[in-house]
């Protein structure tokens, strides 16, 4: 297994390279677009490491593996462990009960406690769920830090077009949708970045809403990432007016000062997903596919990479491992 090539340098490929390098290997890392950037869906992520919140709509594997993610990422980048909050608007309070019933790892907090955690979110009578062990990071900084850690271990990204057929030896195919696996589909997501100093948040906040759920991740320096739509479409192209309206309306409903914020960036991309929304390591001969990270790229890439490395080193097949 000395001759390993990784194709695709998004969050999956970078983590695969890092996991192998920790086991003394120096894999080749190839990406047709070079270093991470707007071409990859990792660029557009929220960066929440929130396994318990994700548990509301995710399989148990995501909750279990996701709990490792914060400590894994902390090896290479700044991870803020400040918990996360889930709130509703006044008329949707039943949504909070439902979310609480479907998740673990939270405490239900009163408006007074909310006022001490996030003063800007406190409104009369508003309760919240506080997931105190959850974390977040800044995706683009995390990718750069991960790349720097690889560079320090002698691994850089070669910019080249390549498919597994073009290279010899063991291949880790981390190309996402470009791998064109038969059961993989794209799920469109759209995001907005706002800048305002009128709102202060120190942790990710999810607004439950029957029609337009929203999360807001503070990036620091008055920058907030608003996400994310989830549409059963593989249509490329920029954010739609409707998605923009929905995300901004929800943010405005959460705090009116967001209406005065500057829209500094919008983005849209496709998440590669399998039918159960759980990522997989799929072995096809000498090729291992690491794919289907869906909306859990940052949450699940470390675990996925670890299982691929375990297989290459020991032949161990973890719960995310599939034979084609």
């Amino acid at each position, binding site marked *: 297994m000395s001759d390993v090539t990784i194709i695709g340098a998004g969050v999956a490929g970078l983590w695969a390279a890092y996991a192998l390098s920790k086991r003394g290997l120096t894999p080749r890392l190839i990406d047709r677009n070079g270093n991470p950037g707007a071409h990859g869906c990792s660029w557009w992520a929220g960066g929440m490491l929130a396994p318990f919140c994700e548990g509301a709509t995710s399989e148990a594997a995501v909750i279990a593996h996701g709990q490792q993610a914060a400590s894994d990422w902390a090896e290479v980048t700044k991870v803020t462990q400040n918990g996360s909050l889930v709130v509703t608007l006044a008329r949707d309070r039943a949504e909070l009960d439902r979310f609480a019933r479907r998740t673990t790892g939270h405490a239900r907090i009163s408006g007074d406690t909310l006022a001490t955690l996030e003063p800007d979110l406190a409104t009369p009578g508003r309760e919240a769920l506080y997931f105190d062990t959850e974390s977040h990071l800044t995706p683009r900084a995390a990718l750069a830090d991960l790349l720097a850690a690889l560079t320090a271990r002698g691994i850089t990204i070669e910019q080249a077009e390549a498919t597994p057929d073009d290279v010899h030896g063991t291949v880790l195919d981390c190309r996402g949708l470009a791998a064109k696996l038969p059961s993989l*589909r794209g799920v*469109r997501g759209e995001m907005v970045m706002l800048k305002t100093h009128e709102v202060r948040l120190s942790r990710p906040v999810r607004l439950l809403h*029957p029609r337009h759920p929203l999360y807001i991740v503070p990036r620091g320096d008055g920058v907030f990432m608003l996400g994310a739509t989830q549409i059963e479409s*593989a249509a490329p192209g920029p954010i739609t007016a409707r998605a923009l309206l929905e995300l901004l309306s929800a943010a405005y409903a959460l705090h009116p000062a967001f209406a005065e914020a500057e829209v500094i960036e919008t983005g849209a991309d496709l998440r590669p*997903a399998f039918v*159960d929304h759980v990522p997989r390591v799929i072995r096809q001969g000498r090729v291992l596919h690491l794919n289907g990270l869906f909306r859990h790229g940052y949450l699940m890439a470390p675990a996925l990479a670890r299982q691929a490395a375990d297989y290459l080193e020991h032949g161990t097949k973890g719960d995310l491992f599939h034979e084609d």
Partner: protein
Amino acid sequence: MREFYGVTLDSPLMLGTAQYPSPAVMEAAFRASGAAVVTVSLRRETGGGQAFWQIIKGLGVHVLPNTAGCYSAREAITTARMAREVFETNWIKLEVIGHADTLQPDPFGTLEAAETLSSEGFEVFPYMTEDQVLAQRLVDAGCRVLMPWGAPIGSGLGLNNRYGLRTLRAAFPDIPMVVDAGLGLPSHAGDAMEMGFDAVLLNTAVAQADDPALMAQAFGMAARAGQMAHRAGPMAPRDMAVPSTPVIGKAWL
């Protein structure tokens, strides 16, 4: 048994495809429920939903594409034409929304679209209020199925106007009718079926349940139970108690 444009359905349950945690969960819900019809929206996925549509086709049940999210007859007609190409069916659940907050159907836009689509050979399932006059106009326009609402979409309130639904059912004895939208519990589905409706259509109550497959199964069983009860001929409620066993001749002193 009333037929839906010549098709007899194995189950009186129709399920939507939105808001499930994943397609795998959705598939499990369909399997557990035995639903005979799947309804799917095309509006938002325009042009890029092929992978999801393949999953829908793979469910192996009748596909009823819908025009959810359309606010005008024109939009709905365009969406319907696209749906016919994608799913190769003349069936279309016609939904023209008239009010963004309540998601009430627009009766005028619905009628206009129903006329056009029927003339183009579509087999229209119009989503409507329980208004009897509207129902007559839709039948005149060529609709051979009607889909009165139970309550506003996604509200889970059940049958909001039992009187209206009962009179509508009685007024069109030959037209298959589906109670569509607003059902929150299996008992709501059973209720509608006991009243003589031919099917129920729902989405949120299953997709947003903690265990969608289990809830889907419950809805499937309740709808079938209601259907059986209607066929069996329910007793009429009485104000007076009637003992099952005569008391005359018993020692009651």
